[in-house]
């Protein structure tokens, strides 16, 4: 790090840093709204915890900035193995809530290895794909190893069951394969295979997951059951109107009509109270992360850094797209957090660390 300190401060990515803090701030405001009840007007313990996670997240982000991202190449596989181990541990002795085992009880903290799995898969994919593809791009046979690297954590995550994280793992892998130079004919073959596999996968879905798909196509089929989430979320967002009902004035969340209001449906809480204006501000902040991520990728010093930036940006993007798509009724309900905004320590700290790595890539493009 010798001689790098001045440059480090000079080239620190303040834009991204501030955007991330703004998103975390919106998250905090939304968690306050989601946990607010007119009965007791004190701050909910949830809010205090979220504040602590944000603090820890900032620390994690700064540590990630200080670490040279290139060292991560060495740790990609060990980290991957560690996360696989954690996912197996979850399966064996995980802490179950709401019918699925997702957490490991660490006393003060419930660790959710699925959140780490996203980072691990990005790291290990980028580590593998950093090699230049042969002329014409990656063919099917080059993808065997990436698919195995994806398949192991994806299977473990789906087993929990956590369809949302499984989906994100698949999407970021495909994104990285595409960007790193996928053969276009292979892409077509993959697309066709996916289309053929879709009906088959119905067979492997759990009944509640099938129910969600049915509800997505026709929410009114079971308005109090699985369609309830979609309907209540749409109502909350729509009731917000152009400028929202105002902070703590949203009734859908305060009166608990919204399910999972501090985590998966936090967007609806925010959109009800801050309206289209607030929602567009939020989307703009995410667009900022994406634009910045893409810029960092394009200007990275090396292929590893570029792909890592793409992968980290892809995590943010896909989670935003799936989460908001679900909250607005454009996609079926799958449990996925809104990055940097949803309540939850594992998600928040992992995501802020990812943003730190992104800043680190940006900061170090001048280092040579």
């Amino acid at each position: 790090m010798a001689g790098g300190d001045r440059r480090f401060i000079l080239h620190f990515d303040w834009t991204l840093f501030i955007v991330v803090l703004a998103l975390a701030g919106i998250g905090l405001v939304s968690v306050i709204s989601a946990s607010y009840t007119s009965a007791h007007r004190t701050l909910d313990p949830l809010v205090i915890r979220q504040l602590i996670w944000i603090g820890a997240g900032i620390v994690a982000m700064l540590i990630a900035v200080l670490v040279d991202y290139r060292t991560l190449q060495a740790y990609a596989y060990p980290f991957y193995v560690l996360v696989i181990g954690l996912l197996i541990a979850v399966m064996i002795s995980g802490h179950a809530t709401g019918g699925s085992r997702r957490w490991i009880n660490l006393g003060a903290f419930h660790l959710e290895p699925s959140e780490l799995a996203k980072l691990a898969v990005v790291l290990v994919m980028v580590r593998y794909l950093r090699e230049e593809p042969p002329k014409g791009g990656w063919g099917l046979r080059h993808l065997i190893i990436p698919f195995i690297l994806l398949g192991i954590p994806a299977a473990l995550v789906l087993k929990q069951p956590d369809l949302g994280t499984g989906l994100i793992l698949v999407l970021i892998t495909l994104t990285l394969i595409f960007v790193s130079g996928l053969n276009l004919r292979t892409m077509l073959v993959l697309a066709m295979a996916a289309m053929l596999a879709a009906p088959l996968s119905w067979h492997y879905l759990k009944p509640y997951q099938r129910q969600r798909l049915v509800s997505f196509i026709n929410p009114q089929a079971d308005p109090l059951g699985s369609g309830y989430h979609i309907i209540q979320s749409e109502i909350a967002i729509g009731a917000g109107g152009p400028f929202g009902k105002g902070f703590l004035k949203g009734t859908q969340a305060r009166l608990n009509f919204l399910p999972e209001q501090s985590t998966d449906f936090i967007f609806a809480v925010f959109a009800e109270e801050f309206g289209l204006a607030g929602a567009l501000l939020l989307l703009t902040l995410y667009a900022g992360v994406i634009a910045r991520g893409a810029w960092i990728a394009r200007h990275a010093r090396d292929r590893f850094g570029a792909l890592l930036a793409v992968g980290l940006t892809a995590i943010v993007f896909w989670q935003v797209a799936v989460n908001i798509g679900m909250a607005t009724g454009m996609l079926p309900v799958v449990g996925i957090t809104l990055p940097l905004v949803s309540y939850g320590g594992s998600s928040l700290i992992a995501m802020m660390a990812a943003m730190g790595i992104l800043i680190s890539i940006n900061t170090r493009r001048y280092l040579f």
Partner: protein
Amino acid sequence: MAKFHIPKSNRPVPLLEPRIAALTAVMFAVLGLVSVRLYYLQVLHHKENVELADRNRIRIQRLPAPRGLVFDRNHRPLVDTKPSFDAQLVPEDSDNLSLTIERLERYTGADQIAGKISDADEEGRPPYEPVTVAERLGWQQVVALEAHQLELPGVSLQITPARHYLYGQLAAHLLGYVGEVTKNDLIQKADYHMGDEIGKFGLERVWESSLRGDAGGQEIEVDAVGRRLRVLKEIPDKPGESIVMTIDLNLQQAAEQAMAGKNGAFVALDPRNGDVLAMVSHPAFDPDIFGGGVKASAWRELTTDPNHPLQNRVIQGIYPPGSTFKIVDTIAGLQEGTLNPETAYNCPGGLWFGGREYHCWRHQGHGTIELHDAIVRSCDVYFYNVGAKLGVDRIAKWSNQLGLGIKSGIDLDHENPGTIPSSAWKQKRFHERWYPAETLSVAIGQGYVATTPLQMAQVAAQVASGGIRYRPQFVKYVEGLDGNIAKSYPPVIENRIKIDPDALEVVKDAMADVVNGAGGTAHKAHLDNVVVCGKTGTAQVVGNNAPVGESEEEDKTPDQFKDHAWFIAFAPKDHPTIAAACIIEHGGHGGSASAPVIHDVFQRYFQLNPPPPKPEIARVLEDASPSQ
């Protein structure tokens, strides 16, 4: 640095650039799509979603107004409302609904809870809105529910005002009962809602609009679990107006007591204005059991009871009037001029007419008698002659003038007008001409003649009042919330006939002697301080061809073949203030079965309303205190 992968150029990723650009474009396109969706939800469909959100959180809770009270003529309460415990169930809060229902039915004895829930759902019950599944729980049931609360998720107790009939079965048919509105009611009446109480029968039904009041309401904010958080808006209810009836509680109690254990009907009227003073129909029912959700078993029991406890015999029971009809013959004959007090006929115990003999109840005959004795001794042959001379159509005409064969106009549902035959009636009904011999049966109140107890009470009242027939009314006035009279019901004269006062006096004298004179058939109605006038009657029960008897001796026929016993009366003879009719089904003779009922009621009446002293008694009193 050598261990790191070193790119060749300063811009290491030219190959990646187009794909990163493409990816970025896709990402922005998706965010754009999301923005469009947000615009659609938050701007284009903002209003609908606001409504949906409000409908989510705001429940309109109707608060039915407390129903008006019912008082007797002296403002003593007969019907009021008292708090009752109802069990409510929020089906959504019960994870095993059928088990909860099973337990609830066991602890409360309620039935058809599942049906009530599905009915409510059909009516569009919002989620988490409770359904009232068992009403008017007794203490034991309430305690059972409290004790087993943990086994009954979603069940709660609710205190609601419930209709309470203070004297149980007293005047049940007149007061009627309330119940929950039916689906049919809801279709017809826009301002009623599911679960509302509505008058179903009797006064409760007819005065529904006064008694009901205007429901208030609350806008209540609820959370997703249906918990009530706060009242957003409140519209106070307007309680129902009270009804002050014409009946006298004490007299009604006396009548109920006199009728105890007997099937039949009793009604007492004030001949001066048509006020119903007491009305009894037995067997009766307990109106309290209808209060919201009568149990199916109790309802079945009531509707299948061969004694028809739900029928108001006073206005719905039709019986041949028997010899009480002879008063009608008398008025008809006197008015038509075919009869006068001196008209005499010979009764040898029967009358040959149209080739067969028509018996008098007294086989040995009454000899030659005039009108007074014919009424007192109820000679059939005498009235065969009176009837034959009048002809059926003139009997019918005066029957109608006396209120028979037509509805009295009392404000109760399902009044039966009875039947008064005439030649035109027979032609229309049977397409047959009238045979003069049939008139003889009509003359003694048999054959086609059918009347209600109320109609016969009106005959007594019309004689008592000297020819004025008032519409029977049982509501004196509606009392507004301020305690003032909101609506009163002045006497309504239905008909007025001019009877020659001397002729009327002859009828009254004869009726007085029925009760008080030698050879009279109703000595059991005699009162010491008041001259009671009356006429007995015996209505033949179909299937019993034994001659209709008129005596005070007990009949030995088995009960179900015994005749119905009639007695109609008024008192005092001069300036009458009460008139009544009583029928005891299968009671045998009017004199032995019905006269005692009227005796008891009249006795009570004159205790409550002391008559002016009789002239004789006044004289005795003067004699007893000459020094004064």
